[in-house]
């Protein structure tokens, strides 16, 4: 090979390489500057992805010492099918029967879902537990897929259902605490914008923006799940025994207004809220008004004592159980010729209470009842509270006050009735009831803390002390509420047996049996109301509701570490807090 030939080849190679490099350079220039703009943006769009970072909803915890979980979000799986794949593989029948067997579905209905030729996505089952989802995955069926999701779980089942409420399938709180504290519980979702590689994996070094989600805050309740359980168990037993249609009961801490337990029956399972009826979902303790009957005498007599128009020893002619007033007859359950004010409460005399109300006068009675927050909401931090019904005094008839005195012509919620009793127990100061103790963010910051709040004074402190003494006689021998007595403690309370108004008349067969009281009578710690709707055949508050009070109050006293009265027990409240026990 000559030197001349070698140079020529070198020259040709150089030209070819130069051409190739020029071509590439031109292509690069085009891609970066000119005609490649469109394809560049297309490529960028394909590679860039945005993801909303889901945030776990906060938990709901009880107010007991171990802060038990009452509601939390847990992971689950959605099972879905791609009908086009299933139809193409001609295995709809086989796949449907296998999936249905694992998920407990109807095979025919599952096959119908899968037989939708034009669809590429159809849910077969949502919020499937991990075990079932794993079983489906193990089948390795064509066209069957699983995707991650979360579901709200209520580990205690039906317990506290009316307070907790539930979250709908869109993750929005729709009842109870879930509804009213939704803005704290739901948190703030995050955002992730990044780029994907050729295998559709995120390239971490190409993250465009990442906004961290803020987890939902935990809501801590004042409710104690052990007290709640005691109350629910007793109510369930009483409902079965007395064949009651419905019931509600509340335990409230007298000095603070904290609700320690709240039970309503019928109830529902919030894990399966779709099958619950409106009747089951109703929180009767705060959202159902009823004529309170004799328990309401407490408010009227407290008002009369506060006005000084009667004393506990003032005697009244109780007309041997039958009194004609304004051409209307008023009867007592047990006839007495004469009773003093204390005995009017103890024996629950309608005639005595009516006479006291008449002495008090319409205006003053109306003023006192409104002071007890009758006719207006107490402002509990739960949705659906009713304010009761109390017409203004100007619209009362000549016999209204005599009927209101015995709890007719006025309607209250169980919470309001308990509020009256707790007001008396708390030296005449009404406290706002509340169920939310605090809201705590995931990093431990307290976002909201509810402190006890006084609504106002309903009666003087000395009147309240007298009332506590009078009410303590109700559970003593000879009173109507002896079954609410607790050994070693002085229990104050009042029974109520109210005929239910039906189509403008009072029913002869349907009653509301109730007992409302507090304990210990001389240094009250908690108040409790038990209301049973239409118990049969026994229907008086003293027989149906008072035993529930007695049973629960005894257990609650021990659980809360209350000691029976005795000398030299100096720091009772400190001891009570030390002695708080868990089961």
């Amino acid at each position: 090979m000559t030197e001349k030939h070698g140079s020529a080849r070198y020259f040709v190679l150089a030209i070819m390489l130069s051409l190739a490099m020029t071509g590439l350079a031109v292509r690069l220039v085009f891609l970066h500057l000119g005609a490649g703009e469109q394809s560049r943006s297309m490529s960028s769009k394909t590679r860039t992805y945005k993801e909303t970072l889901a945030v776990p909803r906060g938990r709901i915890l009880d107010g007991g010492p171990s802060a038990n979980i009452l509601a939390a979000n847990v992971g689950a799986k959605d099972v879905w099918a791609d009908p086009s794949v299933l139809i193409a593989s001609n295995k709809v029948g086989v796949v449907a029967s296998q999936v249905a067997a694992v998920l407990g579905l109807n095979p025919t209905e599952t096959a119908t879902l899968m037989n939708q030729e034009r669809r590429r996505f159809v849910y077969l089952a949502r919020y499937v537990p991990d075990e079932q989802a794993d079983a489906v995955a193990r089948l390795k069926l064509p066209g069957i897929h699983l995707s991650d999701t979360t579901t709200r779980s209520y580990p205690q089942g039906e317990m506290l259902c009316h307070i907790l409420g539930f979250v709908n399938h869109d993750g929005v709180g729709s009842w109870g605490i879930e509804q009213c504290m939704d803005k704290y519980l739901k948190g703030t979702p995050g955002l992730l914008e990044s780029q994907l590689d050729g295998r559709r994996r995120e390239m971490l070094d190409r993250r465009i923006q990442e906004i961290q989600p803020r987890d939902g805050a935990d809501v801590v309740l004042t409710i104690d799940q052990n007290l709640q359980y005691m109350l629910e168990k007793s109510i369930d037993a009483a409902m079965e025994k007395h064949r009651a249609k419905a019931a509600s009961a509340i335990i409230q801490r007298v000095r603070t207004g904290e609700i320690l337990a709240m039970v309503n029956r019928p109830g529902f399972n919030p894990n399966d809220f779709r099958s619950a009826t409106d009747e089951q979902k109703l929180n009767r303790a705060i959202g159902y008004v009823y004529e309170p009957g004799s328990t309401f005498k407490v408010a009227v007599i407290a008002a009369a004592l506060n006005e000084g128009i009667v004393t506990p020893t003032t005697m009244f002619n109780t007309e041997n159980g039958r009194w004609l007033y304004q051409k209307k007859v008023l009867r007592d359950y047990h006839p007495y010729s004469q009773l003093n004010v204390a005995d009017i409460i103890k024996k629950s005399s309608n005639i005595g209470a009516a006479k006291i109300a008449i002495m008090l006068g319409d205006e003053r009675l109306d003023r006192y009842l409104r002071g007890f927050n009758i006719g207006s909401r107490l402002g509990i931090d739960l949705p659906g509270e009713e304010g009761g019904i109390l017409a203004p005094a100007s619209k009362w008839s000549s016999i209204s006050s005599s009927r209101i005195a015995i709890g007719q012509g006025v309607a209250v919620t169980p919470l309001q009735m308990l509020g009256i009793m707790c007001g008396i127990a708390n030296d005449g100061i009404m406290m706002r009831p509340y169920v939310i103790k605090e809201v705590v963010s995931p990093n431990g910051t307290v976002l909201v803390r509810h402190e006890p709040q006084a609504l106002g004074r309903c009666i003087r402190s000395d009147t309240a002390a007298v009332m506590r003494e009078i009410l303590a006689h109700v559970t003593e021998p000879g009173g109507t509420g002896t079954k609410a007595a607790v050994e070693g403690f002085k229990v104050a309370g009042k029974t109520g047996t109210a005929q239910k108004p039906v189509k403008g008349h009072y029913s002869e067969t349907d009653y509301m049996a109730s007992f409302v009281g507090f304990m210990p009578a001389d240094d009250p710690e908690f108040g409790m109301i038990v209301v049973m709707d239409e118990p049969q055949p026994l229907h008086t508050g003293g027989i149906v509701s008072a035993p529930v009070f007695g049973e629960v109050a005894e257990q609650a006293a021990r659980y809360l570490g209350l000691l029976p009265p005795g000398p030299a027990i100096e720091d009772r409240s400190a001891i009570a807090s030390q002695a708080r026990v868990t089961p």
Partner: protein
Amino acid sequence: MARRNRKKTQTGLMFPARLALVLMAVAGVSLIYVCVQSRTSALGHEIKKLEAQRDQLREKVIKEQCEWARLQSPANVEKALKEHGLVMTWPSRDQIVRMRADGSIDTLMGPEPRPGGRLARVDRIVMND
């Protein structure tokens, strides 16, 4: 004067040594870049994997907490007691012993404490019904 060596005469084009050095440096830097890039990418994938694992563990913790809450609910404890044939009742008042700071003890039904005596502690009363 030295004679020129004809055998050492250049016949082709010489590749410039400086250019070669530059190219080698560029190649070296590129290689390092590719290595670092692939390492970063691998770490990125690992972080993603760990993030997913963390989320899964977090979910598992919540699930276990829920299960634990269900297991220790009063209803479940009562059911477990029944299954094991354990019948528990509240202690009667005379079974509850109070201990005082001065060492004396008495029951809720017992003798009155000494004047000025303080309670040291209250025995735990187990709720078992």
